[in-house]
């Protein structure tokens, strides 16, 4: 077998050293009745060329965003992933290392995580970030767990304009946490600060999304203030690539900032793996879930990095841990660091501006009724296509264009609504094509 080095003579020598005469004997401790007595019913082994051919044939049966002009977003975005990201992630040392338990072996990945934490703090205006969470949904559950312990309260509030999947995951976790979940309906595509404040009474935290799931800009400072007023922790769920143009949640009073990292440095990859980020004010650092890297020195006085504040974590605190997370999403977070380093502050701002300009152009160019005409949007916006959304999608896809996401999958009263997304990879000509297809 191509991944195994064992030769017949190795095997012989090793069995002899162990003092057994067959591999079978090594399994003597397994009770006979639980031994598996047949061959695994798996398809035959594939040689490497066949394996590639097989997976190519599977891949060919997917319509990726290189094969269709796509305006899908809704949480996962077709932003350009710079070539250096691939090059960096392909380094075998990063790829095949694990959590840097032994810091002297892993200064590189530790420093990278420290840099990632800094970048996340810079983006969000927070004091401390962990080394990554699973994705943009689970970090919301994490934030609730932090808030529960920080406030002792038993309820969490979610704006209905928060990504539906994020809300679903919070709802799945909530019973175990002993938390009740309350949702705040939107008004005309955004959340009303008064509604939010009322809901946030007695709540541990109140989470909103900026830009929200409809692409609309929430009155974020007012929402944060409303939650604070109710002494619930204000939590903002943000898109990292928006943070060159939109204010950092830390600057308008949020206690915690979370988000899906995919748009910074990760491919769409049918939804994963990506990374979630979570950053907070230093007040809550001892409740932070997951890994944190800190700076220190070695015995010779040189600077170095280690996993730190581990008494929060499962391997030390066990049932009292701030989270059960172990394996996280470091490699994807590293991609995020690489992408954001590639952009720099200037590039990040330009990226946000470009997306906004394109979206503005698209709104006008499509000439269809807007779902929420009063609102300012970022890179996504809702339109009404005047017929069932799935029909519009099918018709457009027949012409090689995916026009966007059918909002009825998550919201009632939106039978004919599409959520259209543009990124810097969609040109005005692409938008013209979408207009043509949706008109036709």
């Amino acid at each position: 077998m191509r991944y195994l080095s064992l030769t017949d003579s190795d095997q012989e020598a090793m069995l002899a050293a162990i003092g057994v005469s067959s591999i079978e004997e090594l399994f003597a401790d397994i009770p006979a009745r639980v031994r598996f007595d047949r061959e695994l019913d798996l398809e035959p082994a594939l040689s490497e060329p066949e394996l590639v051919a097989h997976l190519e044939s599977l891949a060919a049966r997917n319509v990726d965003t290189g094969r269709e002009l796509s305006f899908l977003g809704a949480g996962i975005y077709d932003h350009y992933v710079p070539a250096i990201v691939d090059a960096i992630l392909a380094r075998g040392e990063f790829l095949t290392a694990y959590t840097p338990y032994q810091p002297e072996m892993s200064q590189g990945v530790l420093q990278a995580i420290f840099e990632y934490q800094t970048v996340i703090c810079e983006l969000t205006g927070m004091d401390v970030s962990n080394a990554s969470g699973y994705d943009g949904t689970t970090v919301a559950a994490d934030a609730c767990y932090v808030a529960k312990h920080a406030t002792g309260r038993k309820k969490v509030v979610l704006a209905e304009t928060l990504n539906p999947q994020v809300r679903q995951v919070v709802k799945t976790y909530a019973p175990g946490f002993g938390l009740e979940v309350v949702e705040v309906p939107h008004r005309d595509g955004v959340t009303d600060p008064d509604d939010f404040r009322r809901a946030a009474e007695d709540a541990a935290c109140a989470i909103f999304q900026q830009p929200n799931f409809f692409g609309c800009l929430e009155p974020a400072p007012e929402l944060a203030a409303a939650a604070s007023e109710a002494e619930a922790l204000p939590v903002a769920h943000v898109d990292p690539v928006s943070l060159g143009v939109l204010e950092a949640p830390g600057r308008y009073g949020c206690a915690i900032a979370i988000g899906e990292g995919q748009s910074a440095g990760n491919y769409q990859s049918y939804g994963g793996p990506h990374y979630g980020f979570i950053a907070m004010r230093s007040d809550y650092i001892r409740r932070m879930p997951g890994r944190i890297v800190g700076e220190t020195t070695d015995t010779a006085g040189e600077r170095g990095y280690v996993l730190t504040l581990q008494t929060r974590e499962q391997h030390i605190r066990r049932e009292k841990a701030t989270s059960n997370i172990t394996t996280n999403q470091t490699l994807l977070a590293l991609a995020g660091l690489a992408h954001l380093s590639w952009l720099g502050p200037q590039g990040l701002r330009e990226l946000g501006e470009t997306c906004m300009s394109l979206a503005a152009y698209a709104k006008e160019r499509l000439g269809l009724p807007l779902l929420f005409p009063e609102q300012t949007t970022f890179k996504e916006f809702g339109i009404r296509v005047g017929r069932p959304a799935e029909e519009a999608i099918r018709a457009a896809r027949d012409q090689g264009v995916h026009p966007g996401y059918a909002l009825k999958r998550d919201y009632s009263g939106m039978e004919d609504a599409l959520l259209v997304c543009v990124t810097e990879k969609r040109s005005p000509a692409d938008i013209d094509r979408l207009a043509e297809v949706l008109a036709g």
Partner: protein
Amino acid sequence: MKLIFEKSQRGRRAGTLPTYDLPAAEVPERLRRREPPRLPELAEPEIVRHFTALADRTFGVDTGFYPLGSCTMKHNPRVNERVVALPGFRDLHPLQEEDGAQGALELMWRLQEILAEVCGLHAVSLQPAAGSQGELTGLMLMRAYFADRGEGEQRKTVITADTAHGTNPASVTMAGFQLQKAETDARGNLDLDDLRAKVNEETAGLMLTNPSTLGLFDEQIEEVADIFHGAGALLYYDGANLNAVCGISRPGDMGFDIVHINLHKTFSQPHGGGGPGGGPIVVRDILEPFIPAPAVVRDGDRFRLDYDRPKSIGKVRGFYGPFGVFVRSYAFIRAYGPALRRMSEVAVLNANYMLARLKDTYDLPFERLCMHEFVLSARNLKREFGVNALDVAKRLMDYGFHPPTIYFPLIVPEALMIEPTETEPKEILDAFCDAMERIAEEAADDPKILKEAPHRRPVRRLDEVKAAKRGIVKYGFDQHPNLVGEPAAGEAVEAQKGA
């Protein structure tokens, strides 16, 4: 080495974007960013060099032997990286219509079938992002199952072994259960008497790793299963050690009802410096109604996402799970086919060979053959020469090896938990054992060389206490403190490293 921020210069940049000739869009004043984030500012050449230098300061399986117990640091085949980068996988939007994602859905369906066969169970959810999330998901299933049977209030406790990984108790709490601990007997099995005393109608279930974190297969697993099932409780299999038993013994056949699989361990998703992973769960038919939605199902020759799961616990993660991980693990398994059993056999052979070589030099807490890993104790060195497991670990670095997991499992003092995996050649096992023997000699002859190790890494031993005390967890730019002058903060505590 400088931080990337310390290499930045205002005005440098690597990234460029298309500029379209469009009017600027306005961000309302009160929402607009005031001060730009201080992201790195470097041109491409220095970014590439920076990350190259960081990689050079990182030890991976590609660099050498990485016997980190419980983590299954096997070789990651490069063909898996090739196929995961196919645009049809990499650039597929998760909300693409099902008819435009048939290849992806088929791959997930096939993986589900494989995992069910390997586990001897019935239904699979690929959604959980890692082992710990698999655990939590599994416990949520227990909740849902008992709630559905009207036993929701009654089934309050979950039992974990005293050898359990920290995620198990942590997951128990997060799932809203109460924790109870079960003891290990003198042979390294669960103590049946202790169990019988603890299991009752309040018990929701057991979480167990088998082989255990001691690397030992529980010889009484059938009795264990009977005790729990007899009390109406469920058994959860922590699949972290599945690499020991593929094709040899199946969790379902052992009596487990829920299994999580760490795809990044057994099925070779590269560990990526900490992740990503994949933690699918595989369950007995009685639990199928509760698994996360959507599930991937097959209708004739079409594959689709089934959201119509009224009893489902809901979603535990975005979309359908870490798809890229599935591609790699599927490719990994297809490279073996039914010979997957051979993978486990060689993993177990490698471990037993090392055990045979090392058991006279280090203490062996349980005199048995091991499975795919084994736990030694450095307590003999500590007693005789004042050298502990941490010192041994650090000294191994000087010999070019990544240390094993240490101080875990907790029931073994000065634990050294060694997992070679199947992909290591005998020469490397021998070289490592030679080094371990040398180190034991050094402990006698020159303990200082261990106490002060490592000597040949880019940094010397790092002060973890200082790090925790100072809490410097991000770069402070012009306010960044200089720790170099500050005094050392004292001895490191003996705490688990690895697993």
